[in-house]
């Protein structure tokens, strides 16, 4: 059969239900194969939209996402989603077309060295050298993307090779001698960790996106409640522990709660699970959790002691390790009353510094209020994607995630333009759940061309723009750290989003009244198909509390 038909067989064998892509010259053979393959293909309007949609699909479902682009500009348009998936460990297979082999390296039409361009942004990549390699390489690509610490992989297929005639045999056994992720976790280390936890008087569980990726949210909750361990989550870890829980401290880091950050600051033992001590978490590294010893559970050995030296490192799959750790911990019969003093201290912070804002006295909608209203209108039961900026932080603070894979946000790379296409992927992957994109007027305009995609495919994404006419987060930093000298943050002539929605043939709404906000949002959610809602919010509102960049948790402001 043609090599491209073998590609389709591989996708089916890997359980792929849907791919997001865009055709072009170099991947014409692949697109010919789609005609008869029986695999759903969502035609996006820009390859970056397709890449982020594949990420959203992967994050929401736990399956591997697939994105396609042609050679040259098609491939380079995928670079941002590839890097985004790398930073947040999202399993996506990117398949790019490439010019014919005889043109490689000659500056052929639409040629780009996508292998070279993406090398520091992929978990691994392959350029097909011979058509016979295609089935094996594709199966290896899925294997590498989904196992260990998940991540993006690129398979680059020159167009002449994809048109070759090859025998297809299903590959059932992937053998990569240089790729053997550790999953089990050292038993001795786990025992050590249990002992340290049993002896700790001021412990904190610091849970990250790895818990979501490992499908270990239930185990994390069981572990935390095996005693009264306080739990905080990173931005990408939200939903790994139910937000309305008495042991929940809220998110930590730059815009985390005071209770979470102060607890980290005073902790004597921090148990990090699938988290990587990012600078947005630690603040000033030399003053981060100065009294704590660290247990660090991570599947990636290169994360251990990268930023913060781990006293008890445990390399492996979070789910596996937590199950063993719970057993070891229970066997020790630790006395839960030893944590009472610690909880008194934490409750003191929680009572004194709850998350809050000053609401408007008139109809004006505060952005925080808008998030609370979205939470109320969705009943807390939706897949929520966000873009990057102030609205992202407010969503993380005021939408309470109680399940994993319900919060999809670009955490590591901080990619504006991620949220809307990610919502498309999530809605395709989870058709029975309401999918909401919380975005800003700046971020939304970075990938708004996908309105055509949702309109054409009737993908019922509800887009809520928190519209303040500013690049709000940059404006906040210019206000706070650059002496109020606003530079290129006023978005000026913002488009009429309602008319824009209508131009694309979908429903549009503009909300300006706080009093009817929840009801209006309910109407939007109840409307069939995609809806674009322009929520006019207070123009100059800051995200608080905040640890200024380079400051310590103790020095939180706001």
């Amino acid at each position, binding site marked *: 059969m043609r090599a491209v038909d073998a590609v389709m067989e591989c996708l089916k064998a890997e359980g792929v239900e849907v791919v997001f892509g865009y055709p072009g010259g170099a991947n014409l053979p692949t697109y010919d194969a789609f005609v008869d393959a029986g695999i759903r293909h969502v035609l996006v309007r820009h390859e970056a939209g397709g890449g982020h949609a594949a990420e959203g699909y992967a994050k929401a479902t736990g399956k591997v996402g697939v994105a396609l682009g042609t050679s040259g500009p098609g491939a380079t348009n995928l670079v941002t989603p590839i890097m985004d998936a790398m930073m947040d460990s999202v399993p996506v297979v990117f398949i790019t077309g490439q010019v014919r082999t005889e043109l490689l390296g000659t500056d052929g039409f639409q040629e780009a060295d996508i*292998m*070279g361009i993406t*090398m*520091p942004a992929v*978990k*691994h*990549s392959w*350029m097909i*050298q011979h058509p016979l390699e295609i089935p094996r390489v594709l199966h290896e690509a899925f294997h*590498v993307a989904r196992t260990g610490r998940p991540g993006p992989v690129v398979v680059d297929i020159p167009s002449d090779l994809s048109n070759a005639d090859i025998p297809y045999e299903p590959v059932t056994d992937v053998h*990569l*001698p*240089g*790729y053997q992720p550790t999953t089990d976790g050292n038993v001795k280390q786990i025992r050590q960790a249990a002992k340290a936890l049993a002896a700790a008087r001021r412990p904190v569980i610091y849970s990250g996106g790895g818990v979501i990726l490992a499908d270990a949210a239930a185990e994390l909750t069981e572990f935390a409640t095996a005693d009264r361990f306080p739990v905080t989550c990173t931005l990408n870890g939200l939903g790994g522990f139910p937000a309305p829980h008495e042991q929940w401290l809220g998110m930590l880091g730059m815009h985390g709660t005071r209770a979470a950050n102060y607890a980290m600051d005073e902790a004597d033992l921090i148990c990090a699970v699938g988290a990587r001590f990012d*600078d947005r978490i630690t603040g*000033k*590294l030399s003053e981060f959790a100065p009294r704590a010893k660290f247990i660090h559970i991570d599947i*990636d*050995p*290169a994360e*251990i002691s*990268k930023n913060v030296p781990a006293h008890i490192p445990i390399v492996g799959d979070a789910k596996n390790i937590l199950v063993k750790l719970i057993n070891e911990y229970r066997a020790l019969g630790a006395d839960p009353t030893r944590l009472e003093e610690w909880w008194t201290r934490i409750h003191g912070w929680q009572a004194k510094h709850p998350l809050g804002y000053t609401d408007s006295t008139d109809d004006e909608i505060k952005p925080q209020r808008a998030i609370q209203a979205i939470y109320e209108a969705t009943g807390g039961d939706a897949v929520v994607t966000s873009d990057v900026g102030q609205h992202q932080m407010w969503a993380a603070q005021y939408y309470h995630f109680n399940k994993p894979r319900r919060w999809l946000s670009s955490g590591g790379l901080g990619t504006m333009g991620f949220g809307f296409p990610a919502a498309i992927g999530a809605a395709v992957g989870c058709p029975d759940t309401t999918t909401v994109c919380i975005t800003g007027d700046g971020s939304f305009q970075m990938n708004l061309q996908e309105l055509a995609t949702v309109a054409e495919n009737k993908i019922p994404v509800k887009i809520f723009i928190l519209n303040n006419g500013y690049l709000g987060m940059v404006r906040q*930093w210019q206000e706070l*750290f*650059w002496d109020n000298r606003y530079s290129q943050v006023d978005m000026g002539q913002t488009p009429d989003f309602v008319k824009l929605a209508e131009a694309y043939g979908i429903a549009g709404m503009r909300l300006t009244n706080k009093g009817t906000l929840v009801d209006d949002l309910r109407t939007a959610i109840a409307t069939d198909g995609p809806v674009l809602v322009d929520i006019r919010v207070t123009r100059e509102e800051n995200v608080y509390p905040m640890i*200024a*960049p*380079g400051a310590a948790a103790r020095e939180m402001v706001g």
Partner: protein
Amino acid sequence: MSVVGDPGTKAELLSLEELEASGRLRTGRKHVLSILVENKPGVLTRIAGLFARRGFNIDTLTVGPTDDEHVSRITLTVDGALHPIDQVTKQLHKLVNVLKIRDLEPADTVARELALFKVAADGVQRAEVLQLCEIFRGKVVDVTRRAIIVEITGTTEKVEAFEGLLRPFGLVEMMRTGEIAISRGRGET
């Protein structure tokens, strides 16, 4: 004081000392990394890229075949006094095409490099060069009226010592391979 590398705030300018102090742990010695890799296109770029990303300088690099045609051996040396290498070693391990890495202990390792020296020695000087060559167990591999080429193998220190002695005689140019290294004892490197 601001964190080095955070461009978001209008920090005071950092002094050179502060920039140095912000660096991570350094071992202070030369490291010889012996890396077994799958013999596939792009492997060297991936490895070099990991060093480049952190601004590390690779001092020497040799690549050669092994007894298995699918596997190549890369030997590279980095200065642990200039760069913290522990993190980069862990990152190297993550590359799918990398099969094995050893950070060779100098005491348990035999390391050699090959060097070719072109010396413009004639007349009396030529005799002196030949004498030095004998002391260093070098080999004259080419002689013309106006120059001779000497080949020596040895440790980096030996090659450098030889170079220092040859220089006054008119060293035209020098080619060095960079070190290859093998572990002592019965076990595989």
